[in-house]
């Protein structure tokens, strides 16, 4: 476990940079752009060492993106996005929230955060992005125009987060009480395994309007999720 004092020092350094970037003359335009880029950044670059925990890895644009944590001596987990570039170099960025997914949408690498906020990779920096996803979302499908994100139902009984999937274009939302295995898109349909207390259901859902086409699509779900849903 590593001390987070270095992260704290880096945070205060960046804050100081932000405070000093108020007045710039026209002659210093390149600096304006650079400072502006620094202000946009919502992440802090960390030493390029392996995080204490990695729980999610995606390979996108020949680079490997991982979400994990640095853990301090008190057990506090600080979220980090770790990138391994094609040349093998590692870059670590501290982020404010737990990362729930990393995906590519409209040729941009995006990280989804627990709250639904997103960060976009811009010139090697993770910056705030306007795309807003549901709380605790996993992105199950993207194409040129559309993005479908799904959030699991909370395993906490008294929670009102009962899970669902949201499509951006076309715009629809459907409640789907999935938990551990995210729904998946195969052949233009969403397939989801629903684990209810006394039975499992296997849903086939339209990507066009979110309509449930079949609640007993065992074979389709099994093939799509590439594992036996009864396990």
């Amino acid at each position, binding site marked *: 476990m590593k001390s987070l004092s270095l992260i704290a020092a880096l945070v205060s350094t960046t804050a100081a940079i932000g405070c000093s970037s108020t007045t710039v003359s026209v002659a210093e335009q390149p600096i304006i752009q650079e400072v502006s880029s620094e202000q946009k950044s919502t992440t802090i670059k960390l030493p390029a060492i392996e995080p204490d*925990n990695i729980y999610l890895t995606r390979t996108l644009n020949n680079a490997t993106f991982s979400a994990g944590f640095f853990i301090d001596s008190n057990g506090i987990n600080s979220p980090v996005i770790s990138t391994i570039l094609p040349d093998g170099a590692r870059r670590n960025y501290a982020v404010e929230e737990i990362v729930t997914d990393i995906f590519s949408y409209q040729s941009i690498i995006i990280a989804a955060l627990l709250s639904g906020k997103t960060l976009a990779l811009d010139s090697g920096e993770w910056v705030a992005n306007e795309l807003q996803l549901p709380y605790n979302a996993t992105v199950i499908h993207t194409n040129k125009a559309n993005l479908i994100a799904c959030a699991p139902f909370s*395993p906490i*009984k*008294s*929670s009102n987060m009962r899970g669902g999937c949201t499509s951006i274009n076309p715009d629809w939302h459907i409640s789907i009480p999935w938990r551990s295995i995210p729904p998946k898109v195969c052949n233009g349909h969403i397939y989801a395994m629903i684990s209810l207390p006394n039975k499992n259901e296997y849903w086939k859902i339209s990507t066009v309007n979110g309509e449930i086409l079949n609640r007993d699509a065992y074979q389709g779900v099994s093939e799509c999720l590439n594992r036996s849903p009864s396990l």
Partner: protein
Amino acid sequence: MELHFYPGVHTLVLNSGKQRLQFEAWGGPASIGSDPYMPEEPTWPGQYIIHSTSPYRTPTWPASKLAWGTKLRDMPKINDVWYELPSGKWGSVQKDVGFSRVEITKMYFQLYGKVTVPSFWVFNDFGPISIRWFKDLNNNKVLDGKETLSGQMFHTTPQDEANTALGKKVNLTPSHGCIHLKPKDRDLLIAKKAFAPKTLFIVHKYHEKP
């Protein structure tokens, strides 16, 4: 000693003869609900007998497979959390209970505002202790014959336990049919022996008031 629950007005009354104390307590809705995972149901009116006070586990609710307070050991390098088995050995929460390490950190963050793996399980939906009751068909105040424990029970929730631990206000919420208590009220009721076995417990109809 008698307990009376009035679900329509979220009130539990402890009548000890000398004292009459009222507590806020929330049961299920007056009619069947629409939770897709498990529809909420009314707390069924009737006359019951308190049976026992103990931690509760059930596979029905994923987070309730482990008892509250089960010891945990963080294993970040192998991306898992271990839990202590009754034998003293350790099992995998991921494999045996179905929660990944990051899910545990998310749940703990939602409840306590810290991104960490707790040292013991604080996610059991029924809190540290549940209070069970049964319908006493033969009026002998003992669970026997064809009598069974009710699936409805008194308990607290992980959110209310967290808020209490953090010194925050507890806002009780409707249940799936059980009766939600505030953690401090549960402790007070236990101290007053309100949940002693054989105590008479009456769930009134939704329109009734104390």
